[in-house]
């Protein structure tokens, strides 16, 4: 019984760990069609802000949980709470959308 519980727990932890909630920025992301001008520096900043600011209140969702259309509104709704300046908010949105586009 104990072994089964430990096995299930290990599987849950492993599955959580295997999912990359903040994929590293690649050059492919900067060239993906995002509908706005992005550069690698902006994507790096967006990733850092996403990983640092958002976890002050909640854990990070996988980026494909919400659509590219929904993400800007989601980030906007929490930007004041997370003390995000407009440029920081844009960087986070650009990073999330770039990750989504690069994965599809």
């Amino acid at each position, binding site marked *: 019984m104990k072994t089964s519980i430990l096995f299930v727990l290990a599987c*849950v932890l492993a599955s*959580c760990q295997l999912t990359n909630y903040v994929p590293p920025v690649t050059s492919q992301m900067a060239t993906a069609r995002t509908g706005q001008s992005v550069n690698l520096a902006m994507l790096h900043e967006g990733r850092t802000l996403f990983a*640092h600011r958002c976890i*002050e*209140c909640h854990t990070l969702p996988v980026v494909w949980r919400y659509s590219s259309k929904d993400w800007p509104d989601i980030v906007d709704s929490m930007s004041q709470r997370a*003390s995000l300046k407009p440029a920081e908010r844009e960087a986070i949105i650009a990073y999330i959308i770039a990750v989504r586009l690069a994965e599809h």
Partner: protein
Amino acid sequence: MKAVLYTGIFVAAILPGLSFGGARHFGFIYEAPTSAPGSFELENWVTWSRTTNPQHSDQVAFRHEIEIGITDRLQASIYLADWFYKNDPAKSGFTYSDSALELIYNLTNPVIDPIGLSLYQEYRGGNRFFEWESKLIAQKNLGPLILAYNATVEAVWEAKGLTDHEGEFQQAVGASYEISPRFSVGIELLHEFVFPKWQDEEKIRNVFIGPNVAVRHGNWFVTVTALAQATDTSEEADFQVRTIFGVGL
């Protein structure tokens, strides 16, 4: 009166730029992320504890804390007042305990890095009382699961001339699972090593364990943790419940 007026003007002046400092998932364990720069938050703590050995007593302790995000990695907190109401056969009533300054510096991130680490330092002073507390905060986020660990060393000087002293080493470990972005549940465990007169002759060890619940929405959060003593140490609480209510200003 002038001080109140100036304070009011200061708060009114900075209010438009203020925001939320962050939500807690644990009641007795600190988390590695620090507040966003420029954020400003008021936290009120209420801890009820019941002791039955050697005699029955109840205590309700209050803390009023202002948390300020200074930089991306540095956070400061001011404990405006720690005070408590105690009800026991010998004496009942309210007592002011102390005020404190707390600093937390974040070193690594619990999502990007293999482990998130922060350093914590607190200085606390009251009437014939001074406490120095250092903490290493470790955290790992695995998707919706937060695992946290605190190692704490504290030294206390008290009584007239601050001649009485005591030390404590505490380990705390906790897990919190986020069921939704607004709601999480978890468990916390504290393991204390108490050193009266900074010596370990009495071999005092305390273990507390219990569940926690955290709810957050908009610019507020509430976290409740209930702990029961798993050891049998006299003069230590058998049961304690802590509620932390935080609101962004």
